């Protein structure tokens, strides 16, 4: 497959996943913040700072304490075109990539992206906040989940689809790691575990698996180590690994390139470390380390598969 086409599949997968995750994070926190709104203890501001962190704002700016935190942060994460990880940016980038590989996509896959793009382009922060952001966020999430289903059901599961999988699961793992980095389970174990599970769409699967109300340690173990939950770090990492091995045709458990070698070590870490070991140095340190690991992994994939071949002299 053309390297450029492979790269577009990868970024398509990443940005679709990103738009979906950001919309869920905003939905969860916007509703939660409404419970905190009247309180003057700074919890609302802390909440929005953590949202900004999830959304990729590395040097978190001072969130204004004037009660405008919700609309400012929401605007930045949803509608800011300067912010490359906002919903509008992710949808635009996804659509650009889909457009450039349009001849590789089925009409159904293309339309789900294009229709969402046209919808998002018509929305404004003001109108969305006036009617409450849930409808807008739900529409984004539905389209992106629809994309996942339609692409699985209508595209051949060949190289293009595998690059889509790599992008999708790498982004999902990366975003989960950022969410872990942003929460504060040390100080508010119950609230923050609950928020973590909701942001990862894990409340029901967790309850079914553990049959109890969330406790920090169990919730963290579920999000990091669950074998079967499709948003756990372990699950996502395994899926990236599997897709890369299908692409290179190297047997699983061995490696043929830097990305696969890196993934092998990462998988072993999830497979052979108990939750207490994972959390030895605290959730935040663990998560920060993983965020870097996934960034490195992305570079290995990009360097390995999408280099521009040199032009002969």
């Amino acid at each position, binding site marked *: *497959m*053309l390297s*450029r086409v492979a790269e577009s599949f990868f970024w398509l997968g990443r940005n679709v996943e990103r738009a979906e995750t950001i919309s869920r994070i905003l939905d969860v926190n916007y509703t939660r913040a409404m419970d905190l709104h009247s309180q003057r203890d700074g919890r609302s501001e802390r909440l929005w700072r953590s949202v900004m962190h999830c959304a990729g704002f590395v040097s978190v700016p001072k969130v204004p304490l004037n009660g405008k935190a919700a609309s400012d942060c929401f605007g930045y994460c949803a509608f800011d075109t300067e912010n490359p990880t906002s919903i509008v940016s992710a949808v635009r980038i996804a659509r*650009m990539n889909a457009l450039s590989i*349009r*001849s590789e996509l089925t009409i159904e896959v293309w*339309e789900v992206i*294009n229709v969402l793009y046209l919808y998002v382009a018509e929305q404004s922060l003001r109108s969305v906040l006036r009617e409450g952001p849930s409808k807008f966020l739900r529409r984004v999430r539905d389209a992106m989940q629809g994309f996942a289903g339609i692409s699985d059901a209508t595209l051949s599961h060949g190289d293009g689809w595998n690059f889509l999988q790599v992008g999708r699961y790498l982004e999902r793992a990366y975003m989960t790691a950022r969410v872990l980095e942003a929460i504060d389970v040390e100080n508010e174990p119950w609230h923050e575990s609950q928020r973590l599970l909701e942001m990862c769409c894990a409340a029901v699967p967790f309850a079914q698996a553990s049959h109890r109300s969330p406790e920090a340690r169990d919730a963290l173990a579920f999000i990091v180590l669950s074998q079967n939950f499709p948003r756990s770090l372990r699950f996502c990492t395994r899926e990236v690994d599997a897709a890369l091995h299908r692409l290179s045709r190297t047997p699983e458990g061995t490696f043929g390139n830097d990305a696969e070698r890196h993934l092998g070590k990462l998988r072993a870490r999830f497979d052979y470390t108990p939750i207490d070991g994972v959390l030895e140095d605290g959730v935040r340190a663990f998560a920060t380390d993983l965020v870097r690991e996934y960034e490195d992994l992305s570079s290995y994939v990009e360097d390995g598969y999408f280099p*521009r071949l040199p032009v002969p002299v």
Partner: protein
Amino acid sequence: MLALQPHIAVAQHYDELYGADGLPRPQYAPLAATLGRLERDEILARVQAINTALLQRGVTFTVYADAAGTERVFPFDIIPRILTAPEWARIERGIQQRVRAINAFLYDVYHAERILREKRVPRELVYSSRNYNREMIDVDVPRDVYIHVSGIDLIRAEDGEFLVLEDNCRTPSGISYVLENRDVLKRGFPDLFRNYAVCPVDDYPSRLLDVLRYVAPHQSTEPNVVVLTPGIYNSAYFEHSLLARRMGVELVEGRDLIVVDNAVFLKTTSGLERVDVIYRRIDDDFLDPLYFIADSALGVTGLMNAYRAGNVAIANAIGTGVGDDKAIYRFVPEMIRFYLDEEPLLRNVPTFDCTDPIERRHVLANLDKLVVKNTNASGGYGMLMGPYAASEERERFKDLIGSNPRDFIAQPVIELSSSPTIVEANMVARRVDLRPFALYGRSVDVPPAALTRVALTEGSLVVNSSQGGGSKDTWVLQC
């Protein structure tokens, strides 16, 4: 129902639907009856649904004049244009003849120059053509085919006869609208097709692929064909992606290709992969920075060398623009006589040559009655519609013609035929042209897939999409 506004019963021009007696022509009678039965609101609601579908599918073009690079739906009118089987048969034969002659002309001007030596076409006109390409002299292109794909623009004159308005032998576009228009009309207005046997259009991509495979060098059993696009910002990108998808071949950009030892390769995730045939939708000037525009990022360095070495086929061939130069257009009937020893089946529009002093004087004296066209432009850019232009505009063209006579030709204003069209919820008469496409492989194939463009502005005779034109589904009847 939609009432047709007081029609041009006494019109000077030909109407596609209504005969001179004011009644629908026989081939349109069932269509007119079906339309008459539909409620106005229902028609408008279905039109709206079609427009939404076109937008969602991304059947759009980019308007260059618009700084925002806005993507727009090419306006689609639901009232089809019908061509009877005998009408189409005449068009088909005329186009086959014309395309064979132009192809022979291209071979000739890049080889023995017989037609120039016998002074049937002026040598200086060919050599001064901006698209005559000296790099192509004595180059043998695969199967001697130069114009694999052409679009010949026809108009219908007052007496109902089809005339050739211009030839497009470089990278004519529009076929994607033909395919999409048919698809959305069948879904949106299935009832219109009742009582008609319309030739299908959807095998165009496979007919094109046949041509592209036929011209592959080396006769490999599985030639690797690609479509070369300038990329997603090109106004015809939708068409490029549609053709690649429907032919099942890669859609590539210049940066996806590399030339090694005079052979062309794709850069893939598993190494380099040989390319045999390039259906390019990039102009000559941008194809190879070594030969043409040096800082073009759209092309492929070394492509021309690979082409001249016979290692890759390029469709259309390089240098075909001399064949559709508007100053050379008026010699096409002469080419038909010279190369084929036949009389032209399709007539030309009378054309004045501004390099000829007598004709130029006539043109300058009659600018208010003539259409002036730039010989190298297309898409309706750089033209003057004399009778409708402001006097400053005519003065500007007077200066332009005086200083660069080779760049201009002039033609009398031809009254294009009209066809009923829905504009702002009313049915009104608007002018149309017709662009059939010809595919040249083993022989010249003219699929029954033609584009009807319609000038949506009242009284306008300019149908180009860049100038506010729209399109109609075009039905070629099977019998």
